[in-house]
């Protein structure tokens, strides 16, 4: 705790490759001769490098080499401080999970946060300061900046500090210090992918910028208006776990939530909705107002804020349905369900929608008494100030006008992520001093003359206060790998140099602790501050008391204004929706190979983005998958490939932000769509009257899955609750084949897994966790295109039904650890065999790479190393490897092992403690990471274990059971809860 444990000098030596200069001894010569004589045995004969063991000189007390340590920390992305638990081996962070003591995350975290291990060890990180093109020392760099800033101050000029959202109170204090030292400093916080319309709506309606916490877990009826709350909106981790909790009834009569999703693009949320309504984004606001009116008119729900019924007179459900080509009956049942679930309903409005839609949604929520139940305002804080694209356009104008004598970019990349980056970049050259504090080289650092490398967050201290009830702490897991400094320390150094305050605190950890002692440490606590601090660092999060807020009273004029603005509005032309990508976010993850190669949950495209076009529009434009189109919105145009997306609302197109970064791992793949973000209009991410025309070229998309139909096989069945009730009554059909060894006997355990597809939303967090845990290589787009992606677990997606609004089923596929495994008998060298505890083992050192097993596996889960993917890894990415798992060489088959290293370790720990393995104690990486808790692992020999009980579920089934493979994984059928067509009151 608090301590940074790491190897002493020289301790990493054995990891370095052996010296090439070693003279060839006679012995070595002979061994080489033998190797060439026996070609087939070369790999076995090659002698490994001589090995040294380098113990500590002074051993840190609580580090045991070979045993992992876990430290709580916090990772900030946008406005969300993810509470994480980082696993470290011998001082090296190697795996990130959620902090299980964090009340919001409960041991889960986002797939992007998990992949951050790769950014720590990225070869592209900056390793020392740079002045112009020349490497420089920190002293020179600091002197250059301080001198320039002094001149700026002397001339009375302004300076600009551009940061991401500042949700750290101590970072705020640091910025205030700099502002005090440099009065002309203007601080602008810029989050290019965050929509600010919800805040604008709250300001208009309630007069505050409070963004409440969405309690998806408490909602019985959810309406998502272009709101991908299971994907990219807000705290999706908390939403997924909350959503999943109400989606796994044990019997047909158990309550299950109902999700209506009204959206243009097919989102992760839409694909999991009970009712999905494809509709233009411009229809969201009128629809929400019409819902409010219908609730009032048809169900007697009173209007809040003293709203006059006349205001909503122009909105009628049937009218909206007709205008936006939506089924009126569906909307009626939506309103009916909302009315029936008063106080337990939630209307969510997407960040791309204009403020009017947010006002309308807030009105419906207020009518249904969501505030205080599904909308938690007590914990909300006034959102950190953020610049809108319009504000950024102002900044760009000021830069061009020469207002600023200096610009400082603090871990932000506006040269890529800004609506008019081109204009900004041109203007930027005129600023005398351009400083970038950055982790890696990016578009902005290339345009700066002072580039200062900062610590990775796993090397940094910080605190976060994004919600009133929680204060999160970030602690370093490892000392700076390179000659980098924490950004706060750099800025504090400047501030003290500018004011010539020599005694000012420049060590950020002490600065942080002093601030905590002054402002956080509660007076009268029996514990000393040191004890208090140590406990807080250990937990990674500190709970604080909050008083519930009185219900807010909205301003009627805000509703009237919004209603007036959208009344009578009709959709004009093609509408374009832009959203941050699930993996790339605003482009900051472009150089993380794990995320580039993670297929999109719905289209299975990786290593790039595309324009999603509805099948009917694609026909009209005359394009197919991979054909390029030019999208023109206003004066801006972008050319990118098309993907024909079933479920995309006709008349709308969708594109994901965050691609098309220059250089690095991403290699410029994908297309930058930030130029299409507008700094005018009602929402920056929503464009109307967009033209989409054929560009004539083609740019094939790389897809990890190319067949999206189950062809009628029961691979991923979906039942409605009514079907569940019917099927639960019938005895389960035994579809397994007769077998030659019916009574297999197991050892002490028989490991098995249960996957609840009703909980699984298909996000892909399990894939990243698996990749990190099992040293799975990234193979690159060309290899993915040849079907050689290496993921041991994959999320499959299947479309069924009409192309304009298909039913989507997500499924997880990994090695089924079959009892009668088809792979085993075909292996000529017994490299894949069955273990006593029911595992289908893959023995890398036996495998000779004939690939018969892969050919014989009906689940297509075996992966072959066509190349030596790991020896080409750029230093120091090999430090991210899990030392408990073999790094596989070329020519070897591999597949999911149920994280056998965790099983063996768990069993050993239980044995050492003289007890049986506890149920749930051993969790594979995927199960540990799944925010929806859809994956349960355990011992099938214990009839009371969770996995045994779930395996007996009346919605349990095995995939391709009729092949007689007898898998160890039981899936439970995905359930949907659509309203009864007959019009009877929905079961909610």
């Amino acid at each position, binding site marked *: 705790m608090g301590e940074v444990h790491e190897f002493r000098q020289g301790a990493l030596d054995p990891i370095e490759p052996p010296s090439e200069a070693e003279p060839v001894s006679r012995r070595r010569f002979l061994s080489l001769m033998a190797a060439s004589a*026996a070609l087939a045995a070369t790999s076995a004969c090659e002698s*490994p490098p001589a090995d040294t*063991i380098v113990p500590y*000189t*002074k051993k840190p007390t609580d580090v045991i080499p070979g*045993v992992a340590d876990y430290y709580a920390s916090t990772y900030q992305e946008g406005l969300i401080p993810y509470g994480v638990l980082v696993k470290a081996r011998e001082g090296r962070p190697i795996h990130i999970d959620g902090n299980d003591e964090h009340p919001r995350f409960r041991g889960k975290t986002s797939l992007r946060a998990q992949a951050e291990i790769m950014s720590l060890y990225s070869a592209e990180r900056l390793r020392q300061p740079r002045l112009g093109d020349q490497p420089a020392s920190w002293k020179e760099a600091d002197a250059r900046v301080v001198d320039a800033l002094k001149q700026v101050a002397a001339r009375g000029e302004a300076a600009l500090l551009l940061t991401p959202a500042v949700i750290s109170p101590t970072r705020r204090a640091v910025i205030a210090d700099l502002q005090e030292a440099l009065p002309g400093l203007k601080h602008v916080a810029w989050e290019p992918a965050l929509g600010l319309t919800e805040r604008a709506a709250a300001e208009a309606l309630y007069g505050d910028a409070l963004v409440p916490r969405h309690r998806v877990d408490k909602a019985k009826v959810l309406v998502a208006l272009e709101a991908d709350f299971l994907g990219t909106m807000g705290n999706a981790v908390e939403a997924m776990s909350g959503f999943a909790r109400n989606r796994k009834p044990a019997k047909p009569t158990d309550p299950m939530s109902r999700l209506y999703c009204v959206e243009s693009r097919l989102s992760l949320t839409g694909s999991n909705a009970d009712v999905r309504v494809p509709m233009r984004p411009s229809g969201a606001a009128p629809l929400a107002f019409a819902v409010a009116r219908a609730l009032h008119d048809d169900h007697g729900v009173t209007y809040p804020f003293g709203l006059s019924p006349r205001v909503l007179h122009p909105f009628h459900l049937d009218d909206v349905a007709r205008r936006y080509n939506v089924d009126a009956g569906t909307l009626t049942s939506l309103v009916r369900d909302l009315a029936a679930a008063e106080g337990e309903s939630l209307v969510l409005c997407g960040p791309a929608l204009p403020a009017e839609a947010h006002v309308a949604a807030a009105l419906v929520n207020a009518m249904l008494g969501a505030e205080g139940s599904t909308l938690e305002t007590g914990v909300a804080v006034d959102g950190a100030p953020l610049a809108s694209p319009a504000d950024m356009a102002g900044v760009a104008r000021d830069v061009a006008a020469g207002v600023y004598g200096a610009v400082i970019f603090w871990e932000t990349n506006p040269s890529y992520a800004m609506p008019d980056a081109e204009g900004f970049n041109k203007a930027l050259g005129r600023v005398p001093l351009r400083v970038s504090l950055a982790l890696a080289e990016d578009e902005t650092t290339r345009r700066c003359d002072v580039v200062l490398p900062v610590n990775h967050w796993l090397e940094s201290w910080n605190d976060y206060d994004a919600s009133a009830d929680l204060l999160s702490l970030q602690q370093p897991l490892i000392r700076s790998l390179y000659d980098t400094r924490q950004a706060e320390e750099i800025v504090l150094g400047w501030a003290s140099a500018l004011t010539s305050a020599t005694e000012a605190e420049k060590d950020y950890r002490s600065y942080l602790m002093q601030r905590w002692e002054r402002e956080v440490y509660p007076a009268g606590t029996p514990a000393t501050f040191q004890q208090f601090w140590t406990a807080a660092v250990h937990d990674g999060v500190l709970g604080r008391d909050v008083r519930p807020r009185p219900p807010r009273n909205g301003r009627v004029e805000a509703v009237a204004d919004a209603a007036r603005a959208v009344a009578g509005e009709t959709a004009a032309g093609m509408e374009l929706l832009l959203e941050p990508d699930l993996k790339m976010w605003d482009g900051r993850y472009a150089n993380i190979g794990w995320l580039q190669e993670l297929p999109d949950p719905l289209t299975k495209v990786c290593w790039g983005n595309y324009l999603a076009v509805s099948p009917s529009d694609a026909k009209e434009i005359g394009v197919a998958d991979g054909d390029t189109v030019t999208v023109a919105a206003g004066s801006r145009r972008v050319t990118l490939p098309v993907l024909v997306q079933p479920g995309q609302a006709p008349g709308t197109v969708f594109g994901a932000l965050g691609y098309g970064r220059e250089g690095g791992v991403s290699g410029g793949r994908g297309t930058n769509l930030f130029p299409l973000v507008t700094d005018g209009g009602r929402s920056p991410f929503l464009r109307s009257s967009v033209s989409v025309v054929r560009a004539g070229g083609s740019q094939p998309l790389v897809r990890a899955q190319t067949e999206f139909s189950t062809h009628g096989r029961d691979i991923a069945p979906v039942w409605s609750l009514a079907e569940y009730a019917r099927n639960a009554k019938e005895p389960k059909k035994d579809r397994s084949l007769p077998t030659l060894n019916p009574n297999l006997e197991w050892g002490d355990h028989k490991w098995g897994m249960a996957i609840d597809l009703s909980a699984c939303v298909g996000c892909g967090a399990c894939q990243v966790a698996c990749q990190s845990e099992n040293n799975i290589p990234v193979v690159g787009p060309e290899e993915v295109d040849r079907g050689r992606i290496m993921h041991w677990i994959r999320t499959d997606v299947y479309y069924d039904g009409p192309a304009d609004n298909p039913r989507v089923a997500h499924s997880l596929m990994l090695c089924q650890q079959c009892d009668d495994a088809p792979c085993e008998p075909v292996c000529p060298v017994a490299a894949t065999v069955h273990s006593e505890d029911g595992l289908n083992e893959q023995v890398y050192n036996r495998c000779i790479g004939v690939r018969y097993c892969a050919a014989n596996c009906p689940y297509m889960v075996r992966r072959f190393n066509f190349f030596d993917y790991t020896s080409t890894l750029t230093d120091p990415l090999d430090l991210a490897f899990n030392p408990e798992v073999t790094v596989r060489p070329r020519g070897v088959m591999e597949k999911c*092992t149920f994280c*056998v290293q965790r099983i*063996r370790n768990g069993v050993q720990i239980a044995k050492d403690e003289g007890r049986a393995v506890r149920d749930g104690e051993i969790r594979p990486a995927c199960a540990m990471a799944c925010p929806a808790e859809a994956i349960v692992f355990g011992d099938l020999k214990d009839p009371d274990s969770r996995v045994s009980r779930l395996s007996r579920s009346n919605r349990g089934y095995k995939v391709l059971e009729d092949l007689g493979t007898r898998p160890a994984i039981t899936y439970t059928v995905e359930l949907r809860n659509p309203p009864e067509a007959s019009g009877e009151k929905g079961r909610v």
Partner: protein
Amino acid sequence: MHPRDRFLYIVVPLGVVAVLTTMLVVGRTAEPARYAVGYAPEQPIPFSHRVHAGANRVPCQYCHTNADRSRSATIPAVQTCMNCHRYISMADSDVIQKAVVARLQIDAPLKWERVYHLPDHVFFDHRSHVNAGVQCATCHGDVKRMDVLTRVMDLRMGTCLACHRGPSRYLPPESPIKKGPTDCTACHR
């Protein structure tokens, strides 16, 4: 004999036997010394197990503290030496000053030569063996008599499996363990 028959019945079999014999002989003689029993590399300091574990009867796990709780038994930190040498024998001797005290002062680690070398795909776990009651000497030999640590065990899979299939003679008599795991993933993962 038809030349073709001679080729088939004499030259081919002889050739196969010759190639196989060459492979076996060359492979065996070219095997790195560190795989052989009796491998005793020179260590960075003249540390003697005979003096410590033998004459002074320091228990193995006083220094190799993690043998019962980690995969690695771990070689002690330089500082651990000073637990004793600060107070007792030879604290001022030249050897200790040079080998230990000087290193501690400049924070220079000791680089020990590995004596028991396992390939990367083998995951040996000390704790399961130590906690099952296997004596250190079973695999590491009578280190109490070794001035220079010498390898006494042939680390081939057969050696491991022989014990895993019938461990009783290496276990305490009261041990309930009748066999060790022989699943592949017990060691290879």
